[in-house]
């Protein structure tokens, strides 16, 4: 005993064959360097990066567009000063004679603004003045720059109009004859609306897919490595083997989900700190009640169990890890459909989805985030999910009990 490793001691403490199978599954997976990289390190690095890198390129504050201004009207300093006052723009004065289109094409400037020589004169004469904006629609930073310039032009034009009205002794409020007051009957903030769409998608995706490689390894992988036959000579039933593998995979999946969550938490924290200007109201803290959190966690677990049961049934058919990967990639595509549907379905249809597999837990999660769930809905979604899960585990057992499938040449 003295020269035994900690893992061996844990195995020795297993109280039942089922516990021993779970121990072996987890130990074997944790010793695989690929597991550590794909389930822990990559999510913690890639998830924050995938959330924030696009935001960095979209954010004018972090990545300000380069604006070239060709001022042909010496008197138009008011508008130029307005452009130069905006921190999110890097403004450079251009001289005449340069090929302006080329400057944008070569990315020397993201946007070129041309103020014509009659700009001030036309405004003074209360005629329509025109400015020219040259930009590259395929360049995100160029498009952001155009949006900002247009917003400045709108504000500048508004100021001119208001000044003209005041000169004529007319109240500028005349321009805004209607005020809109909104009442949200569900009391869902914009932040909740955004998170309510994204959380079921992300958590659903993570919960269902975190176990894919583990399931494939423990079913098709074992067949390929020919480790299954020795297993089957032991005095345990196929159901015990299946359940041991299933629980082992569940532990590994939940570990994977945990690391993905850490990645998401870090990513979202960076996002909310650095890119507030992009999200506005959504930057306000989102409060999820403990009850809602418990519902989200419960249905995340159910989704994971359902996903793994489906994967287990399908991957048992595969005779090699590679074949199993083909099946899992097809399933990933199939799983993505309900996840996308849930984001866009109207509420009248969503409530009818509570009894459907995969969709029910997603709807329950969404309602928990919006805090609009009822206990009856949650119980219905839970019961139907348990029925589907039992049916899927039964199917997995049937598949795993078939000699024809296990010893498929």
């Amino acid at each position, binding site marked *: 005993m003295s*020269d*035994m490793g900690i893992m061996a001691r844990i*195995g020795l403490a297993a109280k039942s064959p089922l516990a*021993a199978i779970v121990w072996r599954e987890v130990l*074997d997976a944790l010793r695989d360097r690929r597991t550590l990289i794909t389930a822990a390190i990559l999510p913690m690095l890639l998830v924050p990066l995938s959330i924030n890198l696009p935001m960095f390129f979209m954010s004018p504050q972090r990545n300000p567009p380069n604006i070239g201004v060709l001022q042909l009207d010496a008197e138009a300093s008011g508008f130029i000063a307005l452009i130069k006052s905006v921190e999110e723009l890097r403004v450079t004065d251009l001289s005449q004679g340069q090929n302006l289109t080329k400057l944008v094409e070569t990315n020397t400037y993201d946007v070129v603004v041309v103020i014509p020589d009659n700009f001030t004169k036309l405004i003074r004469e209360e005629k329509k003045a025109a400015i020219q904006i040259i930009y590259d629609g395929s360049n995100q930073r160029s498009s952001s720059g155009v949006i900002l310039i247009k917003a400045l032009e709108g504000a500048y034009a508004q100021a001119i109009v208001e000044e003209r009205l005041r000169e004529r002794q007319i109240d500028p409020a005349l321009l805004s004859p209607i005020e809109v007051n909104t009442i949200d009957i569900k009391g869902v903030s914009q932040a909740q609306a955004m998170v309510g769409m994204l959380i079921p998608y992300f958590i659903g995706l993570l919960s269902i897919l975190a176990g894919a490689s583990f399931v494939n390894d423990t079913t098709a992988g074992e067949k390929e490595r020919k480790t299954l036959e020795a297993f089957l000579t032991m005095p345990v039933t196929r159901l015990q083997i299946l359940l041991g593998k299933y629980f082992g995979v569940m532990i590994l999946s939940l570990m994977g989900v945990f690391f993905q969550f850490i990645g998401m938490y870090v990513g979202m924290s960076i996002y909310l700190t650095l890119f507030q200007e992009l999200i506005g109201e959504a930057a306000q803290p989102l409060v999820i009640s403990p009850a809602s959190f418990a519902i989200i966690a419960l249905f995340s677990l159910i989704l994971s169990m359902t996903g793994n049961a489906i994967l287990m049934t399908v991957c048992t058919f595969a005779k090699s890890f590679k074949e199993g990967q083909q099946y899992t990639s097809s399933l990933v595509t199939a799983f993505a459909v309900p996840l996308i549907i849930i984001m866009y379905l109207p509420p009248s249809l969503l409530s009818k989805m509570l009894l459907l597999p995969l969709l029910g837990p997603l709807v329950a999660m969404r309602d928990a985030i919006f805090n609009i769930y009822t206990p009856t809905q949650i119980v219905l979604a839970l019961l139907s999910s348990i029925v589907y899960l039992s049916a899927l585990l039964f199917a997995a057992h049937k598949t795993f009990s078939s000699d024809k499938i296990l*010893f498929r040449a």
Partner: protein
Amino acid sequence: MTTAISVKNLTKTFGKTVAVDHITFEIPEGIVYGLLGPNGAGKTTTLRMLSTVIKPTEGTATVLGYDILREPLKIRERIGVLPEDTGLYDRLTPVETLIFYGKLRKMNRNEIMKNMDVFLSMLGLEEKRNEKVGTFSKGMKQKVALLRAILHKPNLLFLDEPTSGLDVVSAHDIRDFIAKEASEGKTVVLSTHNMWEAEKLCQEVGIVDAGKIAATGTIGDLEKLTHEAALEDVFIHLVKGEEP
């Protein structure tokens, strides 16, 4: 002599392929019985059915008095199996491997540790006990797989090509081990291609060809039956239907 295994009309088909075709034979307790046959003859499928890994399509068999269809768990508790492929988990050490399989057999902690120490030492694996199996040579892996089969000290062993592809020393160690088990009165069912090995170890053999038992009995019986002087000649005679 008591019968260890009794096989009646055992048949296994995979789709249209008949792997084992209505075989009938008996193996007495306490002998080494050799299943000899060319590749694809049905030896492995027969061993899989007798060790209750797969179910027969037709027929039945009793192993140590238990029916393979009705009492598979009782049979598996009492037998040890060395499959054609060692089927070891590369990332586990021999100690972890034996703990895992010992626990599947519901052996208690002391029993696992005691038997493990004895057998690891007996097969010269004591110093490698905490190294990962994936780093082992084929011979060493075969010894670990053999340890897995005997950890619970079964009275009946199924060994499928136990020395195939091994170096001379490892093959010698394993043959010595089989002879020792036989000398202790255990029953060993040995599937092999090696006629010399069968002659050296087996008291009785069954020649399997195209899913059928071509002949079974002691080596002397088969030599008399075929009028051949060596087991290899008996084998060629029965399988190819011609005198060598």
